[in-house]
């Protein structure tokens, strides 16, 4: 059983969509989801790099410790770290969103910037 390169393809498209939402969408919550998607895309890409067709997950079974039996454990470990980091970041962004909404009653970042500028003047 082998998987062809679909995972990387999907990962890149996911990254592209997420990055575009992060850049273009003016809604803060959508921006946040876009950021999370960007990260998922990258992690999918990284995890696909560790895959070797026909091999098993890196959990030692029956004491077999040969390289040829398992896939590469490093990308999985890195992704594990990354997932947690991205949840932390998105929690902070959401908290900022709540504070901003409480103050300005809108989620649109342009309107918020407008109102903040008026406040300054």
């Amino acid at each position, binding site marked *: 059983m082998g998987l062809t390169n679909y995972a990387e393809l999907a990962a890149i498209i996911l990254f592209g969509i997420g990055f575009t939402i992060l850049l273009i969408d003016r809604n803060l919550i959508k921006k946040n989801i876009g950021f999370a998607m960007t990260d998922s895309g990258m992690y999918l890409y990284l995890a696909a790099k560790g895959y070797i067709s026909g091999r098993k997950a890196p959990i030692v079974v029956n004491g077999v410790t040969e390289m040829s039996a398992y896939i590469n454990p490093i990308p999985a470990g890195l992704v594990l770290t990354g997932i947690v980091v991205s949840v932390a970041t998105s929690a902070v962004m959401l908290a900022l969103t709540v504070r901003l909404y*409480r103050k300005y009653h809108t989620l649109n970042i342009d309107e918020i910037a407008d109102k903040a500028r008026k406040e300054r003047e």
Partner: protein
Amino acid sequence: MTVALWQSIPFACILLPLFGAAVCLALPRRLARLWATFLMAAVTCMSLVFLVYMIPFGKSYNYPMGHFPAPFGNELRAGTLEAVLGLLFAGLTLICTLGGSRDAEHDISEGRQGLYHVLLLLMEAAMMAQVYTNDLFTAYVFVEIMTIAGCGLIAVRSEPGRAIVSAMRYMIMNSIGSAMFLLGIILIYDLTGHLLMENLHDSVVQLQAGGQYSQPLTMVVALLCSGLAVKSALFPFHSWVPDAYSTATPASASLLASLVSKSYIIVMLKVVFRILGTDVINAARMDDVFFVFGAAGMLIGSAVAITVPDVRRLVAWSSVAQIGYIFLGLGLHAGDAAVWHILTHAAAKSILFLSLPSLIPAGSDGSLRDLRGAGYRAPLAGVAFTTGALSLIGIPLMGGFITKLTLAQAALGAGGAHMWISLAALVLSTVLNVGYMLRCVLVFYSHPEEDAVPAAAPVRRGFALASVLVVLIAANIALLVFAQPILTAIRSGFAMFD
């Protein structure tokens, strides 16, 4: 290889604040402040001792984090350059925290002050980790700690509104930068199979020689460098800087402006000189990108600073320009000029941000009009601001002058269009610098009009700020007096850097 006890200092400099941050959460407010200050002082002392031992030692060494040798576990690496930067970061964190403590007490509500000190300690740990780490992924994780802690430090101010807006902008810009940086790490990991910097460098040299992966390598260079440039607020990505620096409490502002944006540049230095090597950077034309954006940042940052009436925003805009100088240094392959400017700018910018609150009268929004005669009302702060301003202007015999001298030397060495553009940019931005900085100083020392309302009595900021300002003035002068040995140390550090 046996490891001397002093060689464990970088490890202690990272782990001590990390541990201290967890403990700090449990302490009551006043004790938390004492504890944080104590830890910062301890880290500063250790960094000083480390530098004293490091200079005669004369070569860099690797320090494994765990029981596993080179490519298998995490590693730290320290040389003279790291020791100098470590001392700068530890010392300035302490100084900024102390100098801004009275304002922080005033700006931050009581329930948040404990958390504020937790954030400061985590920030210090992350910065020390940036300085000493020898592993790209570790750098990413600690970059994220710094990003989030920086967001907290901007938003910690009790006043809602603009501080939060600027924190949000900061966060969006930084997450774009993080995404690019992480993608760069993933691609380079895929190409080489390593995350440790020396191994990465060996593989990259091989790939470069093989010529098979030149396009992906260019992509890696672009992603890593532009991700870090976005995070360090290089010119077109600076939109959050003026708001964030002018609304944050002075300690946070000086910390963010003088240290945090610099530590992304430290990672950048590692990427450029240790991982990729200048050959790969040149092949990808990244040096020209640095050069162009650095020069543009220098000019535009200064040009805006000269028009801004609010003195805090003025200083913030000048930061945009100063980051431009550092990137110009990178673009001209003058790493020593870049590092020297990191030192100068950190010392000068923290003095500006810390002296400003004493100069701005209570109830003013910080526009220059209210600041007439401020230099007489708060003499020490006035002298401090003037010192910082003169250093940034780069009048002969001040820190900024040596930056400009080294940059000009590098430009002359580069020749061609690079030379003319950078010389022109240097001259023009120096003129603009003189314009806005001298303007501030002149306003501070002009007599207030007789019919003006007498300003309210200045807030007493006490002994801590006064001593901090004296130390910073001394540091700015010391940078000038010891310029030659420091530059030698930086250059020898570069020799053992890659």
